């Protein structure tokens, strides 16, 4: 009996908190869920069709260098270089990559003490600048948590906002 065709089926590959994934498989969609104050960063090279997704938890690796060595994706300053390196190995070109960012929610805080979301964003902006990269599209801050999806075949980035029924397109390659 012939095997059923799997063409057209997209396989969801989940990127956990403080983790990253890169892929060239057009049947794969990278997904990361529940971005609270964390940041999701997607990368896509539309020519080599390499995609990556990163789930950053904290801004600065200097608070725990041991953890950063084991799990570079946990921090903005080590996570982005780690994803760029992994994507480069799959033939992604830094000059062509499109970057999208989502997450970094903030509670209502005038004291400025609970500002992990904002600090994550500032740290990421700094690292992106160091690498000469700019952000194509972003949906950051505010009171909502988000999930983020990157389709490897098309480079499309979608968002699901917690408590809202429909997904929305953040970027179309």
């Amino acid at each position: 009996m012939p095997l059923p065709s799997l063409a057209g089926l997209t396989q969801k590959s989940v990127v956990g908190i403080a983790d990253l994934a890169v892929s060239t498989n057009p049947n794969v969609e990278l997904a990361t869920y529940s971005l609270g104050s964390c940041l999701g960063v997607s990368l896509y090279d539309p020519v080599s069709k390499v995609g990556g997704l990163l789930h950053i938890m904290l801004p600065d690796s200097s608070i725990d260098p041991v953890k950063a060595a084991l799990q570079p994706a946990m921090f903005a300053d080590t996570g982005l270089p780690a994803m760029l390196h992994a994507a480069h190995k799959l033939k992604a070109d830094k000059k062509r990559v499109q970057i999208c960012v989502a997450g970094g929610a903030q509670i209502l805080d005038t004291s400025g003490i609970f500002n992990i979301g904002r600090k994550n964003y500032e740290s990421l902006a700094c690292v992106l600048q160091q690498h000469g990269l700019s952000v194509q599209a972003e949906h950051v801050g505010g009171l909502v948590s988000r999930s983020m999806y990157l389709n490897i075949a098309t480079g499309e980035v979608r968002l699901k906002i917690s408590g809202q029924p429909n997904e929305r397109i953040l970027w179309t390659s």
Partner: protein
Amino acid sequence: MDELDSYINKVKKLPPMPPMVPQLMTLLNDPDVDSEKVVKLITYDPSLTANVLQACNSALFSGSAPADDVGEAIMRIGFQQVYRMVVLVSSSRMLKPSQTGYGIDEGELWKHSVATAVAAQTLAKELGDNESTAFTAALLHDIGKIILSQALEHIYKKLVEETEAQQAALVETEKRLLGVTHAEVGGRLLTRWKFPPNLVTAVTFHHEPGSAPEHQRVAACVYLGNLIAYSLGHGYGHLAFAQRGRADALDLLGVNGDDIPRLMIRAQENFAAVQSLLQL
């Protein structure tokens, strides 16, 4: 009977908290606790005992022989850990269902509650406070939402819109629309279930620990545990972050803002272990 009681009385099918949970909590605070007394209390409920044993055995190192009874489980993993298993098993039935009045899907309140419990326990351990008290209070901190969900079902849209438009905390909008908050209702429910006053206070004041007349530290532990759980993405609903920053909560605990990232890492590590145990 006041407004808090009337909301609680309106809920038709509220799964009961086994009365032995608050009794166990009281025993827990006794340094000379008699473990036979504890075993007797737990095993009074056979189906709970079976589930607790199963959870304890999952927590044992893989490859080691399972514990056959509660007494053996206490000997091998300790009274405090067995107690936490009892609380988890007892509250899961209540916390797992969806709460449409808050836009909470099935399993979301449970996951958030466990994450908050683990974060609060992590804080308590770091700060030298009672871990099991912080764990229990944090696990049950949103129990009032089960009561108010029904009342909010028809005005959920309004709750979200008003919160967003006024950049208010969700509890503030609850108070305006219903006259009560989930924190107050939760505290009253725990009083009815005969939980000790420190637990009741921690739940009632988990959004404003500095206003608690006493037991401010445990309330602050739950407050910060709650924020850490949300930050790590273990939250739910639209406008999940609609809550106030309380710098005085950190002062109460003697925690500096710069300590939070490190505490988040510890909480996430501990949660990952519990996550696989409970298959969350």
